[in-house]
């Protein structure tokens, strides 16, 4: 069933959505608000599975899922693997160090070889933006983007939204402040796309050297004053600041970054009293976030990790739903 380019049906005529309209999950950019809500609702049920004693359902039995990771990742890869196992998929991990890439094989050749073994899905993490698009054009398997370069990290944005909705009951109308390296962040891009689609008021904040063009056109407020961003916020989302950005000359020192943009208890006080603190991890204590904040009562950082499994189960389940490869002739 090719549903990749099906146009949205008129709202009043449409039955409740039960599947994604896309074969692949390449980015939040391709998803409608309705599809995002479907993933979040499905993840509620999946979360319940994770709370059972026997945390396993037969949904993806007989399906092969390959986790193809060209960048080091602990959290995301583990989260996908647990999600796949809870859905009874046959999973395997292909990490760059043990793959043929070190022998000079191209991404396309690697993908075609994996494809020849007929996996149902490939979960791809890659340093190049657009790597998932490239794979989606050559593979029959559904491609799930687990982070491509500086482009998107859709399951992270979905689990962030799930966590916000779980705590706040909604996304619409919430003030969400995102602070950190906006220029190089795939988490930022996916979150901006998702949060604006669901009606949140999104503020983003970074040093002027780390602000990409085009953000106002995406419907977000841009500021270089962290106090403005967090004032009255319902959600504060910190992004990781990598040491290499300092080495790249984007700002003078980690110390100055922390004093100017770091999330301290004093700055958190500017937000709403019930504000939650989020971070996609891994966190740099004392660089973008003070330990008191990261470990404080408002922090939902570990909830995000826990919810990641449920959200990824939902994505895998919904993407598998359209395929019909269970019958054996």
């Amino acid at each position, binding site marked *: 069933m090719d549903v990749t380019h099906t146009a949205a049906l008129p709202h009043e005529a449409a039955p409740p959505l039960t599947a994604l309209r896309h074969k692949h999950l390449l980015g939040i*950019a391709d998803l409608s608000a309705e599809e995002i809500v479907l993933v979040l609702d499905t993840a509620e049920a999946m979360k319940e599975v994770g709370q059972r004693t026997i945390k396993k359902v037969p949904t993806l039995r007989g399906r092969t899922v390959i986790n193809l990771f060209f960048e080091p990742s602990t959290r995301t890869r583990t989260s996908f693997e647990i999600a796949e196992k809870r859905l009874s998929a046959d999973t395997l991990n292909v990490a760059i160090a043990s793959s043929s890439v070190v022998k000079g094989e*191209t*991404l*396309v050749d690697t993908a075609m070889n994996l494809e020849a073994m007929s996996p149902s899905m490939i979960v791809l993490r*890659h340093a*190049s*933006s*657009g*790597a998932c*698009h*490239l794979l989606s*054009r050559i593979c029959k398997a559904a491609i799930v983007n687990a982070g*491509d*370069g*500086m*482009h*998107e990290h859709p399951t992270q944005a979905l689990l962030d939204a799930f966590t916000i909705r779980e705590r706040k009951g909604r996304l619409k109308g919430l003030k969400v402040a995102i602070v950190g390296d906006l220029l190089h962040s*795939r988490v930022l*891009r996916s979150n901006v796309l998702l949060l604006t689609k669901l009606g949140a008021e999104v503020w983003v904040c970074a040093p002027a050297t780390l602000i*990409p*063009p*085009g*953000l106002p*056109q*995406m419907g977000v407020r841009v500021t270089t004053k962290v106090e403005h961003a967090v004032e009255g916020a319902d959600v504060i989302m910190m992004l990781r600041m990598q040491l290499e950005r300092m080495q790249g000359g984007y700002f003078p020192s980690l110390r100055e970054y922390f004093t100017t943009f770091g999330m301290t208890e004093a700055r958190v006080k500017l937000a709403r009293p019930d504000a939650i603190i989020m971070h996609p991890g891994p966190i740099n204590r004392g660089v973008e976030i003070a330990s008191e904040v990261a470990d404080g009562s408002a922090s939902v950082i570990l909830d995000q990790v826990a919810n990641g499994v449920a959200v990824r189960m939902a994505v895998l389940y919904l993407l598998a739903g359209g395929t019909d490869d269970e019958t054996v002739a």
Partner: protein
Amino acid sequence: MDPANRRDGVLDVLIDGDRIADVGKNLTADGAEIVNVPAGLIICPGFIDMHVHLREPGQEHKETVATGVASAVAGGFTAVACMPNTKPVNDNAGVTQLILQKAREAGLARVYPIGAVSRGQKGEELADIAELKAAGCVAVTDDGLPVATAILARRALEYTSMFDMPMIEHCEDQSLKGDGVAHEGPVAASLGLRGIPGVAEAITAGRDILLAEMTGGHVHIAHMSAWTTIEAVRQGKSRGVKVTCEVCPHHFSLTDDLLAAPIAYDTNTKMNPPLREARDRDAMIAGIVDGTVDVISTDHAPHHYDEKNVEFDRAPFGIVGLETAISITLDKLVHTGLIGVPRMVELMSVNPAKILRVPGGTLSAGAPADITILAPDLPVTVDKTKLVSKSKNTPYHGWSFKGGVAATIVGGKVVYSNPATGFLQ
């Protein structure tokens, strides 16, 4: 159509051997073979593409001199000037002579090698420019890279002025380019691609225009893409600086929207300088219309399929252009009424000949019988599998244009003809 002689009419062209003997009404000559050119086709002085990468020596898997000139004549070009970033670099007479030897063996189009500004294109010391000139180079450039420093550019402009040859500049401040792969703007930001700002080009252009003004040398600004660069050239020209410039068809016909759709991250939309925004594209068109732009060149940059069939940021920069330039120019500039055919001939024949100080650009008696015959109304659909070039990396695959090439004549010989236009040899 002969703008160099202000001639435009239904006239006979008499060719004697490899030279034009006469142009006029009802010409006759004893024993002359008569070639009837169907009505609607336009006889022009041979088109010259002054910015081509032939890849030989060293990268023959992308293109060779022989396949490159075959592509050139199929695209209506009677001559090409080839860039020195071969392996090894064309920074000495040996490489220049090799290219010219390969060109003689191939026949078809004329080939004018361009030498390197700096030895090995390393940006450190001047190449042996007198030797390059003597061996047949018509200009120098470090194309692929800018001339590395202001002092080297100054010396190159001073030194080349002795030989009456231009220094061609690939304008790009390397620190601003960084590891950018696409135009810095909202499209690259939404695709998560590292940006190359337009001013990276204009800063180097500005530097070289000031240095040309100071030294009296001739700088030719290659493949302009940013509105700020055109502005710098316009200002330089208004002050009388010896600056000329060129624009490629992709920069006046495409924008960076093509990186996102219809094929997201298509590596055939990746070239350097990159496709930029509508404002930049419109500035290129305005510069072509108002006379600021001297030349339309292609920056024909063949790359092998395997090299392009990779992640966007790992793919090499560049697209082929020889076989699509005339169709794009006729369709996007002439048929839209922005320019007339005489201006197109200036941009693609008269001015490149002047800038490189090579024969051509005219149908004057005694000039080489290099002729491009346009079929301005020919419907053309680009099919990359049918390109003559060894490489197929074009973003125009499947695009339809109005206008094409009927025939290409070099030194009095028909080296390419398209039967679909009614032109019969």
